[in-house]
């Protein structure tokens, strides 16, 4: 696919910026990317599967309460079994947004994050004694060919994760890249150290696993380096603004005006999104362009012509809003389930105490009978309370998918932003070209009136024509980039739609089976008590 190959060449271009050795000097095409269709449809649904084999030995504790297996029980049991069975792709928890199987079912890339350790910063900082930071052990098991080994570990700090995330965002514009964990400065102060470290460890693991689950990103060089390269992470961090501003003043003319003599503008530079600091002037220009797009009477030279996309974006936006609402209600539901379970348990305990009391102080047989009845109710209440608790733990797992997809929607929005900003760059350049053209025309017209030529004007015309050529190149580059991103968007959208469909249907099934299964168990608990006390009903009516 053209889109991916372009990304390849671009990737190697940016490698020149890297500070340290690049280990892999292979040629940019051919061997490294056996690209089969990343949208292959052989996705297995962990929850949707109905097993033909019902004779699995369930290790679930509630089988003691039930007797003949029912429809829900059969599915329910299979659901339990799937929980315990190991899954491919490092997906131990089913909280991954994209569980679609990799192109070849043998491929795996399993990542674990563990062992937070405090380390000292070497004294290249101004603070005497250095500052402390935490590193995590990242362990990888894989059989993917890009990697040098099959099992290896590195230590990385959170800053490295930020770097990885930034580099991926640059290299994979237009892709739905999973969002990295927050920096959460406030939380690190407020929470207990241990709690915070554990939370961060879990978040990092989730993030890396999601990257590993993405069919394209899992094969990226950036991820490989992060997982495998020993010692310092060989990816450049975002440099500080000041130095970039110095750079910027020099770079910008190269990018947009190409005024240096024989200046070779790296057209690919232009294709990069404008960043703060070094691209300050460019940002101003693009901002001016976007304003004129919005308010100017003139239609911008290139518009977002894909109406279908505009509709899709709107639909996704609506989906995101409703999803957020459902997520909120889901939280409330979980709380209500928790509450009823707790109260049921507390009431059960109160009846246990009453039973004990009546038994100890019983003078009459009627008291002993009552104590026996009460004991049944108390036991049943406590059982029901436990069932509610289990039900809720499962419910949380299922409905967590909602929350997860909210994160995915953010990634989708980012991908669409990439596209918009690439388009804006193209529009800006076209606008530049157009104004250059009119300036050239004017000068040529004026110069032609003077017989024999106007040396200064002619020189000026030459300069402008040179600038025009450079700008033309930059525009071509920008257009290519824009098209590339569009293609990425399109592919990712297809993948997303399918995964969303499968994920949510799986979530719904899991939720429903869970609810039905536990309701059935509770019904059985109470049925017994109702039968035991049925004698009283006759007296009353």
């Amino acid at each position, binding site marked *: 696919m053209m889109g991916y190959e372009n990304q390849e060449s671009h990737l190697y271009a940016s490698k020149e910026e890297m500070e340290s050795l690049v280990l892999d000097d292979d040629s940019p095409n051919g061997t490294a990317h056996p690209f089969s269709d990343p949208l292959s449809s052989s996705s297995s649904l962990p929850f949707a599967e109905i097993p033909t084999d019902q004779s699995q030995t369930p290790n679930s504790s509630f089988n003691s309460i039930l007797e003949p297996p029912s429809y829900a029980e059969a599915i329910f049991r299979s659901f339990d079994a799937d929980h315990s069975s190991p899954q491919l792709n490092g997906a131990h928890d089913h909280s991954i947004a994209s569980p679609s199987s990799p192109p070849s079912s043998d491929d795996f890339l399993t990542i674990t994050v563990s062992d937070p350790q405090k380390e000292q910063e070497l004294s290249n900082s101004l603070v005497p004694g250095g500052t402390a930071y935490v590193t995590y052990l990242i362990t990888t098991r894989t059989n993917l060919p890009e990697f040098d080994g099959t099992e290896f570990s590195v230590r990385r700090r959170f800053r490295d994760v930020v770097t990885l995330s930034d580099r991926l965002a640059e290299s994979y514009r237009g892709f739905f890249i999973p969002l990295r964990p927050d920096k959460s400065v406030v939380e690190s102060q407020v929470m207990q150290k241990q709690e915070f470290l554990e939370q961060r460890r879990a978040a990092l693991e989730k993030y890396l696993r999601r990257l590993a689950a993405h069919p394209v990103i899992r094969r990226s060089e950036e991820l490989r380096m992060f997982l495998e390269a020993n010692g310092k992470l060989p990816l450049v961090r975002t440099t500080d603004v000041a130095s970039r501003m110095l750079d910027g003043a020099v770079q910008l003319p190269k990018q947009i005006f190409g005024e240096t003599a024989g200046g070779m503008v790296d057209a690919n530079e232009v294709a990069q999104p404008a960043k703060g600091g070094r691209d300050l002037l460019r940002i101003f220009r693009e901002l001016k362009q976007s304003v004129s797009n919005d308010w100017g009477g003139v239609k911008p030279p290139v518009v977002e012509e894909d109406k279908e996309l505009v509709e899709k974006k709107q639909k996704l936006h609506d989906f995101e809003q409703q999803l957020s609402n459902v997520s909120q209600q889901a939280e409330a539901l979980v709380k209500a389930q928790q509450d009823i379970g707790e109260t049921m348990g507390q009431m059960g305990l109160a009846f246990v105490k009453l039973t004990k009391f009546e038994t100890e102080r019983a003078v009459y047989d*009627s008291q002993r*009978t009552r104590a026996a009845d*009460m004991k049944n109710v108390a036991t049943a209440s406590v059982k029901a309370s436990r069932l509610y608790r289990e039900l809720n733990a499962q419910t949380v797992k299922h409905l967590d998918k909602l929350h997860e997809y909210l994160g995915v929607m953010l990634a989708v929005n980012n991908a669409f932003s990439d596209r918009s900003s690439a388009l804006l760059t193209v529009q800006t350049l076209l606008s530049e070209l157009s104004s250059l053209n009119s300036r050239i025309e004017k000068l040529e017209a004026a110069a032609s009136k003077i017989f024999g030529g106007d040396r200064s004007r002619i020189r000026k015309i030459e300069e402008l024509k040179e600038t025009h050529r450079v700008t033309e190149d930059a525009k071509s580059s920008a257009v290519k980039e824009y098209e590339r991103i569009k293609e990425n968007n399109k592919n990712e959208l297809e993948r997303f739609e399918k995964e969303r469909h499968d994920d949510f249907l799986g979530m719904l099934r899991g939720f429903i089976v869970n609810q039905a299964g536990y309701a059935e168990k509770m019904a059985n608990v109470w049925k017994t008590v109702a039968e035991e006390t049925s004698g009283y009903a006759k007296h009353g009516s």
Partner: protein
Amino acid sequence: MNTMQRSGSGSLQSPRSPSSQAPFLSVSVTDPAKMGNGVQAYISYKVITKTNLPEYQGNEKIVIRRYSDFVWLHDRLFEKYKGIFIPPLPEKSTVEKFRFSAEFIEMRRQALDVFVNRIASHHELRQSDDLRIFLQADEQTMDRARFQETGIFKKKPADLIQIFKDVQSKVSDVVLGKEKPVEESTPEYEKMKNYIFELEDHLAEAQKHAFRLVKRHRELGESLSEFGKAVKLLGTCDDDALGKAFSELGAKSEIISIKLQKEAHHLLMNFEEPLKDYVRAVQSIKATIAERAAAFKKQCELAETIKFKEIDLNKYRLTRSEKLAEAEREYEMLKAEGEETSRRFDTIVRLMNEEIVRFQEQKTSDMGLAFHEFAKGQARLSNGIADAWRSLLPKLEAHSS
């Protein structure tokens, strides 16, 4: 729900057929109606009596009564039948906005129905004149009787509380071994008193949680309903299989939410209310305990007074004082009063012994029924929920393929 706790143990069951020769007295409290406006507004109830007892006029009588009429009946019986555990009344409502809510009115009606029926099936209480007045008198007569009551026979709440306090402190005093001459302290009676006081605590706790459980059912219903609505909206974002699946889930959630609300109401009326009734019954016993303590105290004090009077009498005899005749008369009166007081006290003791047996038996069957209703309701709810969710699965299969 008039079927609750109609039977009293050992007393006459009321056969349904009016042509039967066995005596019966059957009462029902129905048709609550709001009367009056504003601050003066109140609820009135129809009290329907069916009987073949000769003391009652005719086979059927319908009268209109309000809550304070029931209070009048309760207080009269409490005064006249010391030693018997008078059936408890539902509480007066202090929260204004709750007073006319449908649920409160229904709960109160049910409790009043149970109250009157328990009196009508108690072998002694059913014979009371006050019951007859309550069931038969026209409304003006009833009003007059009620107004006469205030101030004369009514114990002020402060007095009652003081009596409770005395009883409670005296219970612990005797347990601690302190001798107090005006305190009854047989070991069986002590045991019974301790039992009653502790029972109240245990029951109150269970009832508190039962009440909360009702609330939790309602809350779960509400949150499931909101969840369902939100999921339905999510379903409108897609017009494919996924969208339909969401819509179906949302709709089903709303249906289940209604089941939860229904069960909450059933739980309230058939489980929590009987528990509360149990607590009230225990409190009624405590009131009787207080009465017994008062009677015992009076008996002792009177005995003291008589002793002193005897001393005076002998003094007068020796000195041949004119006061002798008068003193002898007073002495005779005191002796008579002393016998009367003793007799009353002994009656209380005897009645209480019978009542405690009846109480335990009645509570076993009351609670047995309440437990049955609770379990039945929970089973019905859970089965309904399981069926509802399961019914979605075939459709979901269809969507996945």
